[in-house]
């Protein structure tokens, strides 16, 4: 399909006119009609979705005062509560560390198998893609529910949930990065007698390494954010305290937890951008 398109265009250009109109005008009119059709379709989808979610701007506006009241109850944050939050905050970081690291280990082989230019066989390729899409398509919260049921409450099911979801994200990214490498060096090493693993080590790894490191760091940042809510389903971290404070109407505790979450995210962003600059 994709390689037929330019051919068709040049055929039209070669004829000079279609239905008596100059080529320029035909393609302009065609472009207009297409834009109009796309705009109409977008409007229909938007209206249909608004209907589906019961979009009621009026009630939102009417609700603004009570939202403000809720927020005002949160001030000032209960800073004294911060001491109790140190341990769950650290646990949140620990969950993210292992949830990312385990995923790096599992997604490396999967990513290699899912890259069309290095996979040893089409069967591996399709299987790896299927596994990665499943891991990626299901939210870490859903995996957390499953692992809590399987191994019990605590941070460990949280680690497993993050690891599985991250495997899908990292593996797909690895595969795409591998598929985008310059094929020249691969060919050169194969011509010199390299086997598959040697080719990967010497021709592909140097090309993809900076991207891999950057993406691992990015997934770690995202994992910190995810780990702050895993506690909602009993999978460890600061989220457990968040949900209990909300349920008990401890507004000032809730805001203190949000402060800690923001701090966590902020500190990891700084740390990982520092690392990124060092490594790449």
């Amino acid at each position, binding site marked *: 399909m994709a390689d037929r398109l330019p051919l068709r265009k040049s055929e039209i250009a070669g004829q000079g006119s279609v239905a008596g109109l100059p080529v320029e005008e035909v393609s302009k009119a065609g472009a207009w009609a297409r834009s109009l059709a796309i705009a109409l379709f977008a409007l229909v989808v938007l209206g249909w979705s608004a209907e589906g979610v019961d979009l009621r701007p009026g009630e939102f506006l009417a609700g603004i005062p009570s939202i403000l009241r809720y927020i005002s109850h949160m001030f000032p944050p209960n800073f004294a509560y911060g001491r109790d939050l140190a341990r769950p905050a650290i646990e949140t970081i620990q969950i993210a560390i292992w949830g990312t690291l385990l995923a790096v280990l599992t997604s490396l082989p999967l990513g290699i198998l899912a890259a069309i230019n290095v996979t040893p066989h089409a069967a591996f390729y399709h299987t790896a893609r299927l596994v990665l899409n499943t891991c990626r398509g299901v939210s870490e919260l859903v995996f957390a529910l499953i692992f809590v049921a399987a191994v019990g409450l605590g941070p460990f099911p949280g680690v497993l949930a993050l690891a599985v979801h991250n495997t899908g994200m990292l593996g797909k990214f690895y595969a795409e990065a591998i598929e985008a490498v310059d094929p020249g060096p691969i*060919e050169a090493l194969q011509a010199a007698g390299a086997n598959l693993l040697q080719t990967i*080590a010497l021709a592909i790894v140097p090309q993809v390494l900076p991207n891999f490191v950057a993406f691992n760091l990015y997934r770690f940042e995202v994992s910190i954010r995810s780990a702050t809510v895993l506690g909602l389903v009993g999978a460890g971290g600061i989220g457990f305290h968040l949900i209990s404070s909300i349920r008990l109407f401890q507004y000032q505790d809730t805001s203190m937890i949000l402060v800690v979450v923001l701090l966590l995210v902020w500190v990891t962003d700084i740390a990982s951008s520092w690392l990124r600059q060092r490594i790449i």
Partner: protein
Amino acid sequence: MAHLLELRRLRKSYGPGTEALCGVDLAVDRGEFLVILGPSGAGKSTLMRCINRLVVPSAGDVVFQGQPLEDDGHSLRAARRHIGMIFQSFNLVKRLSVLTNVLAGRIGYKSTLSVLCYYFTREERGLAMDCLARVDLAHKAHQRADRLSGGEQQRVGIARALAQEPQLILADEPVASLDPKIARNVLGYLKRINREEGITVLCNLHQVDYAREFGDRVVGLSRGHIVFDGRACDLTSSVLAEIYHGGPATAEEV
């Protein structure tokens, strides 16, 4: 004495109606500098790639050092390590050092594990430095490959091929992306290696000037057929017309 390389009725078709090689017979002796001359699309790259089986021929045999090349991994690897290849786009690993790129030429001799660890022996490093010296680039050994100019990168490509201690070097349009002065310089290195070390070189070119200047023997390729096989000085204008515009009658009729 047997030929170093023999192609017997070699054919390659990329699909119905795209016959890139139409039954090529060719024998190459040790020490030759053979230029394969032909316009773009004649099948020069395909011919070269069929020799080291980067492209699998549709029919016919490639006999290297008396052994027919087969697709089983072990014997193919053994043959490939003796055949160096040089590419139009150099095909260096840009982020690695010049020296590591040359060491990569040893890959066909090394265990998988040692390559995974980027482990190279003192002897291998010495050999790689020696190969760089042969293309006058020893002083650039520790630079990143993409810091070098085009001509220098291609000389690294030559050094990488030399590191294989090859019996045969295949050069696929090695100077097509270089300007004429640099191109002559690079071809000069290939020629010197051929003369002084006796390494057989097969070199694809599409410019007649270079073929006349550097080739001993020239093979003219047109639409997958060999239409000329002789000395460079016998490249007359009628021969060139056949290589560049004609092709044999059978090809005309299609």
